[in-house]
């Protein structure tokens, strides 16, 4: 028997929580689902956020995909579950973009937000030598957080050129408060911040020991925390048949997707940061429960909040040199250990999957897809069901 709800919200980050608190004003049957063990999404991870009162919340629950219209399949802490909905709000957020370079598969080379998430999850970082690298304001947020936890931040390497970062920071007075905070990080971090610099390779015997930087400097470190911007999690929307353009879920002014009864809010509709995610979430929550008046009253706020991501996009676009870091032997698909040289003779993502198994492992191309798109210019054509290997233990994984 499926569990029955009027409004189901997938993702309990800023967008999903905002959607839930708006929806619960009119509906008594709201379900909020998240794969994480606690609500909060990426930015509020580990901050003890509570779901709004009156909202049923399922944590450690991963939505795998649709069984048929109005019915979702999920993995609830290892147990299969079916969830039926009248209205569905997708607030699945974003993930980091990882770019391959020689040595990026060594243990202790992690995402920028990835290392932060693990430290929030109890990873001991005190006294560890950390290099934070990649691009975007997230690097500073991560470095500031790790420094507060007594990590030794050796360097924050931003690939974007200095002039572009300066132009961006000159406009900080109208940026969201969180970001302004990150950029006014105090002398300690400012001294470690370098623009126009990026990691070229990572070295070590079985784990990270040292990195080589684009200025030919070598640096010994315990962790490389490295992310190249964010990628919308639009796979679930794609599986549900919502139209996607350049990786982003298309929505109208009420955050409605091209599919009947499905709304989308937050990062999947385009990377916009927490402030915009919250506004979009509330609009979706109101719109899905028929409160068009409250939804409409937020349109101006949404417009104001969406100026900032556009500026961020142009400031932190990826430089072409990053395409030339890979060697023929560099692993691109970490799940199936597919090397760069195996991919270059194919021109479509489909051919790569068929001939090399690139993107066929448990991450289903979430890591290598955006990397291949950046390196070779061909993008995954959409997710294949099920969204994740169902209950991970049951499907293909067993062969490994």
């Amino acid at each position, binding site marked *: 028997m499926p569990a029955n709800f009027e409004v189901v919200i997938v993702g309990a980050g800023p967008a999903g929580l905002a959607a839930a608190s708006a929806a619960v004003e009119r509906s008594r049957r709201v379900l909020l689902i998240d*794969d*994480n*063990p606690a609500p909060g999404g*990426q930015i509020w991870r*580990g901050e003890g956020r509570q779901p709004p009162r009156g909202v049923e919340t399922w944590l*450690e629950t*991963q939505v795998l995909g649709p069984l048929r219209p109005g019915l979702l399949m999920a993995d609830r802490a*290892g147990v299969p579950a079916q969830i039926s909905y009248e209205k569905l709000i997708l607030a699945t957020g974003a*993930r*980091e973009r*990882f770019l391959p370079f020689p040595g990026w*598969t*060594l*243990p*202790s*080379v*992690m*995402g920028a*937000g*990835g*290392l*932060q*998430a*693990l430290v929030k*999850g*109890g*990873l*001991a970082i005190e006294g560890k030598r950390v290099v934070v690298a990649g691009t975007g304001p997230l690097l500073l947020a991560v470095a500031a957080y790790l420094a507060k936890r007594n990590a030794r931040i050796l360097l924050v390497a931003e690939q974007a050129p200095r002039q572009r970062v300066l132009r961006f920071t000159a406009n900080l007075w109208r940026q969201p408060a969180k970001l302004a905070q990150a950029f006014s990080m105090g002398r300690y971090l400012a001294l470690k911040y370098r623009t126009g610099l990026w990691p070229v390779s990572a070295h070590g015997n*079985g*784990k990270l020991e040292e990195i080589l930087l684009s200025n030919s400097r070598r640096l010994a470190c315990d962790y490389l925390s490295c992310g190249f911007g964010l990628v919308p999690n639009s796979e679930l929307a794609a599986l549900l048949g919502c139209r996607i353009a350049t990786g982003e879920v298309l929505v109208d002014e009420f955050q409605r997707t091209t599919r009947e009864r499905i709304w989308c809010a937050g990062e999947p509709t385009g990377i916009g940061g927490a402030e915009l995610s919250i506004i979009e979430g509330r609009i979706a929550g109101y719109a899905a429960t028929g409160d068009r008046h409250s939804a409409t009253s937020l349109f101006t706020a949404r417009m104001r909040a969406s100026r900032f991501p556009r500026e961020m996009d142009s400031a932190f676009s990826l430089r072409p040199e990053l395409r030339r870091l890979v060697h023929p032997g560099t*692993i691109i698909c*970490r*799940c*199936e*250990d597919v090397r760069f040289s195996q991919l270059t003779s194919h021109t479509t993502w489909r051919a790569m999957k068929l001939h090399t198994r690139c993107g066929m*492992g*448990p*991450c289903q191309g*979430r*890591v290598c897809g955006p990397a291949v798109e950046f390196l070779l210019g061909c993008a995954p054509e959409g997710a294949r069901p099920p969204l994740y290997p169902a209950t*991970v*233990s049951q499907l293909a*994984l*067993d062969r*490994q």
Partner: protein
Amino acid sequence: MIRLRVNGKPVSLPEGSVVAAAIALSGLDATRSSVRGEPRGPLCGMGICFECRATIDGQPHQRTCQIPVRQGMEVSTDAG
């Protein structure tokens, strides 16, 4: 404090920590071996990449970055 074992070795860490942190605390950098036998550790920290997977209480292929530590858990890694 939550007490659990990683490849038989006892570790304890605060409630609210994730299993990936327990594996690191036990002294391991890698959580698994790749298809070609390379050591791999957590990458994304948020349940996307599957690099952190290990066996928890007999259940293989669990994403250790997403699972909170629980009293008496038995964790084993194939890269251990």
